[in-house]
């Protein structure tokens, strides 16, 4: 049968395809490309973690685990979160191991939203929040953040978007694609609005370990916020484990129980080999992880400096592994810039508008790349910028 589109549900048809996907197809057809378009570490998972997984397979750990995840893993996660953000979660009822943070976000939205409930999403942001909201029959409400504020969410911007249907606020800091972070005082300034409007916060902290010149602060650690926050984190970025698809959510037992209900019917449990590897990461991975973070930090400075030298305005990212320079001085749109950069200079970056309308005029450059590739890519980008200087 051809033309089956009419069978597809309205909700799915309404979702636009990912802007990144479109660009991916373009890049895949080109050769000799230096890619700064990736959203993952350039390290392979540390060997001791891979080896632990291997060992668990040898020992025959190939079965289901409990829906919530292996008890040892939840114990380790509880200890880790206490160390990292200073919040205690009950490993029995307050933690759910998921297939990456992506799953955690999806099931949280499905557990929380009534049709038409509004989800406040600071933009630019990771690509899945709005579609996830819409698939849960909610309404995604973008809240703009700006380069002059270092992409921190301002209380007045948030307050302006709140309606009686507002239910969830997604905070994703350190932020992909901007590299912005929220300092303690920035979070404190939001607490009143959140409590007054009875919002639940989904705090996507997947980049929390990748915070430079400062400490990551979770909104869950602020007074009155623990119960109304779902902290989501995972192993992909800090431990270079993207392909393992393993993450978790921590929060109030009632919400975690509701999420577990969806999780048990759709996923059953996260793969046991990834869970075993995650235990090893939390028990013995801190040293190598710190080393990787230090390495990102060096390259962060290299890229920011390089981008500024070729004449692109770029705020200094404080977290994650992305720079988000403005390309407005070239007079090109984000997509035009990225296409020209790809075809004329063989460098792949991601157009900022893939992360929301407020990303227009910007590009995302990932510095999880080798020093020589960063230097070469920036040089090539410089040639393009030169050709298109408008002022």
């Amino acid at each position, binding site marked *: 049968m051809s033309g089956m589109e009419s069978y597809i549900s309205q909700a799915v048809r309404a979702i636009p395809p990912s802007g990144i996907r479109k660009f991916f197809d373009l890049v895949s057809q080109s050769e000799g490309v230096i*890619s700064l378009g*990736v*959203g*993952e570490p*350039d390290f392979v998972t540390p060997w001791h973690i891979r080896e632990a997984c291997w060992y668990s397979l040898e020992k025959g750990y190939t079965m289901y685990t409990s829906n919530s995840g292996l008890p040892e893993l939840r114990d380790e996660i509880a200890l880790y979160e206490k160390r990292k953000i200073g919040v205690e979660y009950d490993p029995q009822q307050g933690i759910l191991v998921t297939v990456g943070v992506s799953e955690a976000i999806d099931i949280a939205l499905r557990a929380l939203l009534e049709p038409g409930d509004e989800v406040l999403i600071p933009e630019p942001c990771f690509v899945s929040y709005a579609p996830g909201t819409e698939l849960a029959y909610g309404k995604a409400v973008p809240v703009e953040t700006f380069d002059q504020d270092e992409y921190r969410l301002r209380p007045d911007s948030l307050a302006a978007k709140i309606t009686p249907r507002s239910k969830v606020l997604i905070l994703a800091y350190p932020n992909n694609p901007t590299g912005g972070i929220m300092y303690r005082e920035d979070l404190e300034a939001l607490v009143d609005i959140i409590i007054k409007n009875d919002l639940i916060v989904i705090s996507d902290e997947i980049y929390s370990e990748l915070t430079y010149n400062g400490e990551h602060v979770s909104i869950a650690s602020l007074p009155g916020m623990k119960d109304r926050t779902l902290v989501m984190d995972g192993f992909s970025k800090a431990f270079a484990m993207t392909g393992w698809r393993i993450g978790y959510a921590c929060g109030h037992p009632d919400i975690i129980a509701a999420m577990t209900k969806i999780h048990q019917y759709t996923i059953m449990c996260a793969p046991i080999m990834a869970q075993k590897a995650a235990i090893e990461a939390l028990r013995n991975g801190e040293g190598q992880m710190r080393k990787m973070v230090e390495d990102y930090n*060096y390259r962060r*400075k*290299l890229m920011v400096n390089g981008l500024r030298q070729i004449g692109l305005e770029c705020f200094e990212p404080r977290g994650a592994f992305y720079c988000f320079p403005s390309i407005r001085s070239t007079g090109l749109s984000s997509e035009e810039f990225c296409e020209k950069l790809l075809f004329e200079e063989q460098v792949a970056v991601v157009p900022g508008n*893939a992360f929301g309308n407020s990303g227009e005029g910007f590009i995302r450059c990932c510095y999880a790349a080798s*020093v020589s590739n960063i230097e070469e890519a920036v040089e090539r980008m410089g040639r393009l910028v030169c050709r298109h200087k408008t002022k």
Partner: protein
Amino acid sequence: MDLRKRILELLEQDARLSVKTLATMLEEDENKITALIRQMEKDKTILGYGTVINWEKVGCDGVTAMIDVKVIPEREVGFNSIAERIYRFPEVRCVYLMSGTYDLSVVVEGNTMKDVARFISHKLSTLEHVQSTVTHFILKRYKQDNFIFEEPEEDKRLVVSP
């Protein structure tokens, strides 16, 4: 961390990093970095800059041997003077004082097995204070100075991802 240590860590990974790149990565002044590197070269903190090479790729099948050497230490200078007499030979790549059943570990390189054997029997074993030697020839190199020989440097990531 001490700035010198951070410079050294970066140079140990890649000795070809330019001062300019180092200065950017470390957020320090170029002149300061240059001065520190010079100083460390002078005081022999930095002994030299080398390249890790897979010589087989250019058809050079040299021979390397690791030799366990038992020596009788000399009064007052212990192992140092005999170690010095050994490391002065250009054939000798490395000399280490070891704990355990022998005393010095000596890495020797030659063009052929005969060259190395000749060096051992004529030069090394005949040294006064050398009691015995046990020679191990290297058959295959898997990893050296943090570099893996056969693994291709391949980026397996998707070129663009969210």
